[in-house]
């Protein structure tokens, strides 16, 4: 039900593992974590949403806010998500055009590396 956040570095990219519900109640914690990472100079982020059970527009807003912050440092914020019900929310808000969305963390890392 609640939100669990974890993060670790892989191939120089910071992976953020999110589990549970990202909604109006828990999204502030994700926002804080993203701000903290940017303040610690992690500008290449991958948010792994595979264990996200619920996502609302507040959660979307926090991801968009995170994207803006890393972009201000020429960074990137990519997503890992294969769950149809979560992808649907990105689609109906037009955010599939804004985020790179990948099937696995490794694919997200590979895509980011090849772009450089």
């Amino acid at each position, binding site marked *: 039900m609640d939100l669990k956040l974890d993060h670790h570095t892989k191939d120089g990219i910071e992976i953020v593992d999110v589990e549970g519900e990202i*909604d109006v*109640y828990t999204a502030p914690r994700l926002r804080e974590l993203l701000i903290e990472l940017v303040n610690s100079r992690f500008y290449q982020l991958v948010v792994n949403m595979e264990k996200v059970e*619920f996502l609302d*527009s507040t959660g979307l807003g926090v991801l*968009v806010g995170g994207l803006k912050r890393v972009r201000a440092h020429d960074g990137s914020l990519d997503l890992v998500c294969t769950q149809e019900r979560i992808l649907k929310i990105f*689609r109906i*808000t*037009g*955010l599939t*055009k804004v985020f790179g969305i990948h099937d696995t963390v490794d694919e997200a890392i590979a895509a980011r590396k090849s772009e450089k």
Partner: protein
Amino acid sequence: MATVELSFTPLPAHVRTARLVATAVARHSGVDESLLDEVRLAVGEACSRAVEGHQLHCPAEPVRLALTDLADRFEVEVTDTCVQAPAEVASQVAGGKAPVRLAAQPAGAGRGTADGDGLPHSLGIAVIAGLADDVVITETEVGTVIRMSWPSAGSAS
């Protein structure tokens, strides 16, 4: 016949309660399991939006959620009891006249990229418009009413 009404002080935690209640009553009213995710999300969006508005303008006033089990539809109504900036909602939909009927299509799709700014509630309205089968947003003297509905097979009771 409004079957269940919930009113709650404007706190994010209660939005979860609202989602829980809406999903449970929708299920009982015969809304198809495949639609319950949409009901949960759309009700959450409408309530989040109302909670944010109340926190700014009237933190002491409760937000109201009404769930009505009609013959072949399940209807949800979320009511702000204090004035919200009507221009913000109105700008989301053509003309801004009340009541405004939104088409059930990707409403956020045409509205630019993440670099667009100053649309604080737009994502929520986009989600609602994209999920609810039928949405009517009405501006009243005291605030905004978001009415949404989904097909249902009729109550199990």
